[in-house]
């Protein structure tokens, strides 16, 4: 008996060490980003980083506002495209489709999540960008192209989390609604969706996190001009693109400014994650 306990304790210790090393890596990354990124923000002032419109690092001008606006625009655009599509698919798969059909379709949708982002970017560059250029004008590399690609990329997240939320609504709700004379659609709209709301919102926020963090596909289709886009057909640069584009040659303060970009991105993603946690916690309370 005592030997067993010792073994148990050893296993627990081993697992604890692994868990701690994973967490400490995360902590080290956080400390490192802030340690590298904040000094330059203090030196030139937070205002110039958050509100500056000119990004010319070789001339010591580090305005990140175009990239902050760019990230938000592209993410918002992705939500406009991804959320209605995703929600509609989730409603169809849970409430209207044949069980057998949804058993085939759901894994297919989840497969979408497994496609590497560079492939999405490549397809966007080859087909979507020329299409936008020829149909709508502009260079094609644009807010619109990035939003469409990201909208497709967040679909699996939005769909699978919404499906879970909708399935979690007890059948008695639906039965009650139908017994009162409501149609299938009325039931979905007035009973099921409100009941599954916070789960769906959590899915949307996770999709938003994916969209704001995506880099490769966005670099390929967004055009990356460091300017606040005047229209959805203008090129745009996101915070993540800013880091990935310029890290190869950056040195000195330019490099620190890229870390500062990372700090801002970190803060934005922290806010999003907290929002997701709060909404899912609220759902659990219900």
């Amino acid at each position: 008996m005592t030997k067993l306990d010792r073994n148990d304790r050893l296993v627990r210790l081993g697992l604890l060490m692994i868990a701690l090393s994973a967490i400490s890596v995360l902590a080290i990354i956080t400390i490192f980003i802030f340690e590298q990124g904040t000094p330059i923000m203090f030196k030139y002032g937070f205002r110039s980083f958050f509100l500056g419109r000119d990004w010319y690092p070789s001339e010591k001008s580090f305005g990140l506002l175009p990239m902050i606006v760019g990230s938000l625009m592209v993410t918002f655009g992705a939500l406009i495209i991804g959320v209605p599509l995703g929600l509609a698919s989730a409603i169809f798969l849970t409430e209207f489709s044949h069980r057998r059909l949804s058993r085939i379709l759901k894994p297919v949708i989840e497969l979408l999540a497994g496609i590497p982002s560079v492939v999405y970017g490549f397809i966007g560059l080859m087909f979507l960008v020329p299409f936008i250029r020829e149909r709508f004008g502009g260079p094609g590399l644009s807010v619109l192209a990035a939003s469409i690609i990201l909208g497709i990329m967040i679909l699996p997240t939005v769909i699978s989390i919404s499906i879970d939320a909708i399935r979690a609504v007890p059948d008695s709700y639906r039965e009650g609604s139908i017994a009162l004379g409501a149609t299938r659609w009325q039931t979905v709209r007035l009973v099921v969706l409100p009941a599954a709301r916070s789960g769906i919102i959590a899915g949307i926020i996770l999709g938003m996190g994916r969209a704001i963090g995506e880099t490769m596909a966005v670099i390929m289709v967004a055009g990356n001009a460091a300017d606040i886009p005047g229209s959805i057909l203008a090129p745009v640069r996101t915070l993540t693109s800013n880091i990935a584009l310029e890290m190869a040659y950056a040195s000195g303060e330019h490099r620190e400014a890229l870390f500062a970009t990372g700090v801002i991105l970190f803060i934005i993603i922290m806010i999003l994650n907290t929002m997701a946690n709060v909404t899912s916690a609220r759902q659990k309370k219900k």
Partner: protein
Amino acid sequence: METMEAKRRRETMSAGWPSASATRMTATLLFILLSVIIFFPSCRQGRSGHNLVVAGSTSVQPFADKWAEVFMEKRPDMIVDVQGGGSSAGIQAVKTGAAHIGMSSRELKEDEMDLFQIEVAHDGLAIIVHPDNPLDNLTIDQVKSIFVGEITTWETLNGQKKPITVVVREEGSGTRGAFQELVMGKSRITKKAIVQDSNGTVREIVSRDPQAIGFISLGLVNDRVKALALNGVAPCEEAILKKEYKLVRPFLFLTKEAPTGLAKEFIDFVLSPEIQELVHKEGLIPVKKEQGSKL
């Protein structure tokens, strides 16, 4: 029966002893792996006798890689380690002694002049447009106005009432640095310009967009894009050697002092007719032999 079952279970669990140490071993291995990944670059100083570290401009790097490969075939006892990092990083690396030879694709600044520099090749910048663009020639001032963002449509240039798509490289790249220095001077490149992080993607975008204009290394021009003449001078090798075509930058090898030993051997090798011919084949412009003999 149940006690037997419980006993068996206990046995399998105590057989978990090795698996506990296995987890710890995995943890240790992971830890070692992580520390190797994190600290490896800083260990690579390459200070041993038969090891030559060449670092710097990523424009020079792919060519230097090839030269090093040919060199190592001849001298199997040598290891030439070619690293990127950019011109500025290469200059810094030579100064600190982290690299034996630095590579730069721009002229040295005044405070860097204490280094010993050897020109190993020249690289031209080409201003490229879509092959369907009727334009063949621009003045350097026109190019500047386009990239500053003063000329925004093709109308005054080739008659087409279409907006110009300006494509540039990202801040910090040697090609952009060369363009900034050779064409823009103190003026800023327009913020509206599309930014790409390699010569290849700039060429790809220009080859697909009939309204686009961009700049890439002369050696990388192919028939999917059209290289424009500047001030009436086409970017051919003859014009470059005569210094008529203006957008040319040097590829420099840098050493702290006059090169000796292995570094000298490698530099001499790069300046030899064999490698200079290779330079030529790869689309760069070879240096004249006299320059090599300055050593």
